[in-house]
Structures are given as C-alpha cells and as structure tokens.
C-alpha cells in the first residue's frame, strides 16, 4: 500500500509523529510518496526515500545537535563505533573457533540500540532477542563480560551458561538475551506490568525483529499493553529480513507501525540509520510511557549488513542491495552530522575509534585468559 497512507494515518493517530521521527506535514509526506519505490509498486527497497527524508531534516537536526551535551554525543558515537568493532572482532574469533553455537551480529543496526537505549534512565528496563551483544554493552555491560560469555568462560556475564544469545545483567536492568523468536515480547510486557504495579516509573524497552511481528505473542502482548496501559515501548528493529526471508515474503502488509492501530496504540515509523531520529522518536515514546503509562510501537527500519548469523551464506539478497544500504551506514551518517555541526573533528573520530579498538582488545584478552566454568556449575542455578 502507498507509504503516504500509512503515514497520514500515523500522523493522525499520535499527534506528534511522522514517518521518520520528526514532525512533518501530511502534504509533503504525500509528495514524497510519489517518489517512493513502494508507491511505484517496486520492491521494498526504499533507501532512496529514506535518504531524501534524511537530507530534508538534516539542517534542523544539525541545529539540534549543536544544542546537545557534547559528552552525550561522544558517548553515543563511541558506543556505535565500539559495537561495530566488537562485532567485527566476534566474526574474526568465531572463525577461529573461539566462539561456538549461534552468533548474530548487530552491524548496521547500531543507531537503533544507541538511539533508543541512550534516551533511557539507568533504572529503565531492557529486554531483547539473541542479537544482543551490542545492546548489552550499550546498557552498561563491559566488553569483557560480553566477550567472555561468547567464549563460554567463567568471566562471562552469565558465567558461560548462556552464550551469544543470552546476555543478562540484573544490576543493569538488562533482562536478556532470548532465543525464542517473539518470546521476549510477552516477557517485556510483564516487566512493564511490574513497573506499573510497583509504580516505579520505569519504562521497558522491548526489542524484536520484524519477523517476530508475525508471532501470535506480538498480537497478544500489544492488546494487553494497551488494554492495561503499560509503560512498554515495543521496538521493532526492521532490518528487512528474518534469516533468508524478506519482510515481503512473510508479512501481508508493509507497515508494521500501522499494526499498532489494530490496538489503538500510538506508533511511529523511524529511519533506523539516523541515530538522532531514533533518539527523538524514543524520547516521545518515553514521555507517553512516563506520563500516562501508555505504550508505543516503534518500527525502526534499518538493514542487516552481515549474514543472519555467522553460519548464513546469505544467497537471498544481492551484493548491490547490500551496498545500496551500506551507503547509509549509520555511523558514517552520524559522523557527517557531527562534523557539519562542528562538534567533532576527524581527529576526535580517530581517538574514539582507537579507544574502541583498545577496549575490544582488552575484552578478547580477558576472554582468552578467563577459565572455563567449573564442572560443578552444570548443576547450579537449576532451581533457586
């Protein structure tokens, strides 16, 4: 269906929303729709539209960036760069056989984790799926504890019991790392239920992929969240593929944000390559959640630059498609804006990158040295 329609509806529903995370008037949305490949009935490759919209809002965004705390901006960029380098290292050591099992990398989606989680208070809760290494670090876990977990070592965040898919930290309100597609959507809803019950003011961020949206638990959870007004922000990381299956081959409709309307839930569609747009949309959702505890569904569209997991041959998409999306690398886009805003220079960027490289090297060294869990650990934590 034409993108414009979706958007107008979205705008209509939640006053201050739009297709890309900052207020736009329906009229120019309609205009864009004409340029949208979707409207032209082409495949779901709307990277050009996204880029056009990004350029449109770039000016106002740069002004906004200038007003933001420089420490925060640096930390945002650092976390994106750290995430990228950490995952590249994972790929490297996985091939060396240091990591076993499944290993799902976050490369290409860094703006989503950073844009959303860095808008939270420390006490807010997060739950996600198996693509969790970088999100765990953004929530505050050390690269050491994550890498050691990937190595299945005692020093890992869960002592080697979980591995790549199951990072947890109670102290940091990071509720894991889950392997059953969609399962965490319901669990996250329950976390928000507890926050409301105990009136803690905590918001829950619940991450899942676009393919998880087809699971029944998505439908069951959003109904309860809206019915009971739970402070839960559902974040659909639409990287456009579930393993080898494009959204188009698995979902009868294009707009995921719009699915919230079946529950009369607030929703936004967001450009997941633009970390500032992600942050803005998240801040609006957090406000809704804190004010009257009402939930929001955010569809944040990005792209998975690597395979689904380390064992994915990835024959289901063309090199060209990947390159097309890589032109909108979220780290590059953010750096450009930061430079244009005169907040950072190339020298700063090199510094940041260097820091990240060293942090990852320390993590690998730590993981290498950390011992395997004691055999007695097999039978601990089975029952409390």
């Amino acid at each position, binding site marked *: 269906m034409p993108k414009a329609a979706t958007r107008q509806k979205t705008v209509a529903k939640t006053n201050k929303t739009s297709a890309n995370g900052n207020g736009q008037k329906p009229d120019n949305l309609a205009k864009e729709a004409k340029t949208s490949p979707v409207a032209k009935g082409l495949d779901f490759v709307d990277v050009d539209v996204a880029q056009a919209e990004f350029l449109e809002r770039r000016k106002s965004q740069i002004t906004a960036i200038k007003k933001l705390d420089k420490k925060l901006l640096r930390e945002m960029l650092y976390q994106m760069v750290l995430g990228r380098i950490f995952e590249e290292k994972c790929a490297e050591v996985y091939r060396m056989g240091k990591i076993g099992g499944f290993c799902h990398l976050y490369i290409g989606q860094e703006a989503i984790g950073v844009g959303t989680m860095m808008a939270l208070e420390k006490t807010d809760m997060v739950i996600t799926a198996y693509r969790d290494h970088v999100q765990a670090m953004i929530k505050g876990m050390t690269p050491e504890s994550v890498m050691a977990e990937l190595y299945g070592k005692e020093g890992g965040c869960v002592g080697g019991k979980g591995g790549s898919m199951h990072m947890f930290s109670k102290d940091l309100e990071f509720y894991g790392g889950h392997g059953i597609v969609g399962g965490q959507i319901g669990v996250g809803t329950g976390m928000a239920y507890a926050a409301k019950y105990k009136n803690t003011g905590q918001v829950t961020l619940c991450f899942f992929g676009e393919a998880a949206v087809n699971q029944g638990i998505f439908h069951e959870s959003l109904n309860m969240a809206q019915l009971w007004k739970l402070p839960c922000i559902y974040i659909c990381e639409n990287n456009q593929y579930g393993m080898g299956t494009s959204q188009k081959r698995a979902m009868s409709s294009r707009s995921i944000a719009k699915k919230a309307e079946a529950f009369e839930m607030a929703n936004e569609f967001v450009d997941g390559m633009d970390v500032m747009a992600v942050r803005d949309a998240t801040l609006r959702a957090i406000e809704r959640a804190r004010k009257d505890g009402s939930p929001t569904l955010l569809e944040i569209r990005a792209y998975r630059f690597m395979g689904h997991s380390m064992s994915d041959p990835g024959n289901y998409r063309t090199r060209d498609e990947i390159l097309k999306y890589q032109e909108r690398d979220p780290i590059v886009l953010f750096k450009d804006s930061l430079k244009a805003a005169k907040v950072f220079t190339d020298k700063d960027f090199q510094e940041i990158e260097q820091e990240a490289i060293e942090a990852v090297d320390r993590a690998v060294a730590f993981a290498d040295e950390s011992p395997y869990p004691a055999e007695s650990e097999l039978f601990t934590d089975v029952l*409390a």
Partner: protein
Amino acid sequence: MALLTIRDALNEALREEILRDENVFVMGEEVAEYDGAYKVTRGLWKEFGDKRVVDTPITELGFAAVGVGAAMAGLRPVIEFMTWNFSILAADQIINHAAKMLYMSGGQFKVPIVFRGPNGSAYQVSSQHSQALEAFYANFPGLKVVMPSTAADAKGLLKSAIRDDNPIVFLEQERMYGMKGEVPEDLDFTIPLGVADIKREGKDCTIVARSMTVPLALQAAELIQTEFDVSVEVIDPRTIKPLDIDTIVNSIKKTNRLVIAEESHEFASVGAEITYQVMDHAFDYLDAPVKRLSCAEAPMPYAKNLEALALPSVEKIVAAVKEVCYL
C-alpha cells in the same frame, strides 16, 4: 482445624498470601469479576480489587509471559489456567522461559511464579478438556510440579508454592474441588514442597497415588482390608518434582509390592518414572513387578459410559493390588 472443601482451602491460601505479601497477585481468565470459572478465587476481587486479582483476555501464551516478566521484575504472580489443557498454548513460556531463566541468566533472574488450575478430567468434557499434564511438565529441569489431594495439602502446598522462588506447576482437579477435609487455621501453616505423605499405613502392598486417584486408592485399600485382610499402604507424593522417592522406597522395603494409580496417560508417565526410580533403589525388595494403572490409551471420549471406562477406578485399583499380591 476447620472443615473446608479443597476449593475453599485453595481460596484461603490465595487470600492469606495476598494479604501477606504485596507482590502477590492472581491473574487469569475470569478469576476476578466472575469469581473464577470454578470459583477457586471466589470473593478475592471484591475484597482486593483490580490490582491484586486480574481478569485477562483469552490469551494464554501472552498472560503466562506477562507473569514470567513480572516475576523477573520482582512480583510473585499466581497465574490461573482455566484448565491445564489450555496451558499447552503457553507451554513455551513455562518450559522455554520460566524454567530456564535462572539458569540462562547465571543465577541472576529468579522467576517466582505459580501456574495453577484444574488438571485432568472433569465430567464429560471430552477430548480437548480432560488431559492430565504432570508428565508433560515434570520432564523439564527448572520447574517444580505439585499435585494436592486433600484440603489441607491444597492449602499448605499452595502457600509454600507462592512463597517458593521457583516457577511452579500447581495441578488441581475439578472433580475434587468439592471434597472436604480438616485444615489447620494457623496463618503460617504450610507444607514443604518435596515431601510425600503416607495417607494410609499398611504392610502388605504399597499404592502410590496422586490427586484424583488418592481417594480411590484409599477406598480400594479399605475394600481389600475387609475382603482379603491385606493391609495396603497409600502414599501420596504430593510434589511430583522434586519427588520424595525415599518415602516410597521405604514403604516398598516393607511391603515389597507397588501399584501406581494415575489419571494421566501412561506412556512416559510419572508412574513410569516412579517405576524406574523404585527399581533403581529397591530392585531386590520387589516381590512382583510394579503395576501401573493409568487413563486409557485414547483421547477422552464424551459418552458417560466410555469416560468411566477410560478412567482409573476403585475396582481397577483393587484388581491391580490383587495382581501384585498374587491373590
């Protein structure tokens, strides 16, 4: 002591634990305004209101998940399944989430949650509404499985379950909700999980029964006593997992004979597990092969005569005891 039905004993347990701990709440289909499909939660919503007693949409997987997440975040949910048959829709949350969370998180996230409701057959409710699921859940590490058979056990075990820090599968029986028994009135009366109860002392043969088959076994024991002067010991494990095998083994060392009566289907049943553990611990004490009595190997039929034929009965238990005693 007060004379209560199992229904009211469960109701009291819920009420007392809600009063005792502000983090305890009851959630499920029709548990609040309707007073519960089988009235186990009668009056609780009127007394405690929407926060503590919560009606849900018909969405078993979803509200089981809400319970799991709420428990991880510090609450102590009691999730009612209108019947356990419907829990199969929620099994992924019970088995893949609740049961594994503590382990996957390296001991960081406890899931103190009780899933409860009627298990097994009712009265002619046919194939999709008559299943006993204890074996289905007991296979998975990380869960405790409880099956009370008296009012006192129901209350004491449910209170312990709610206070326990693990995910618990608490299996009741609709046919038994109206059965009466003496229940201690002490607010802190609890029965520890994992401890079997000898419901009847005996020396010639042991019957291990649970839930609905306990009263049947007791009747059978009386009949056998009078008819054949054989003294039967009836043991109710009460908690299926962890299983108090010692009490069972000690009984067999005395009686040298074992009959297991269960309402569930037989293949890979809890009865099979007890048989294995008994053989493992008391092989040399068995004077006869263990005899197991289960539900017929068929989905539950609706017709009254066929349903009766499918279920364990006093007669069938008597026959089984005679068989192992070579009478």
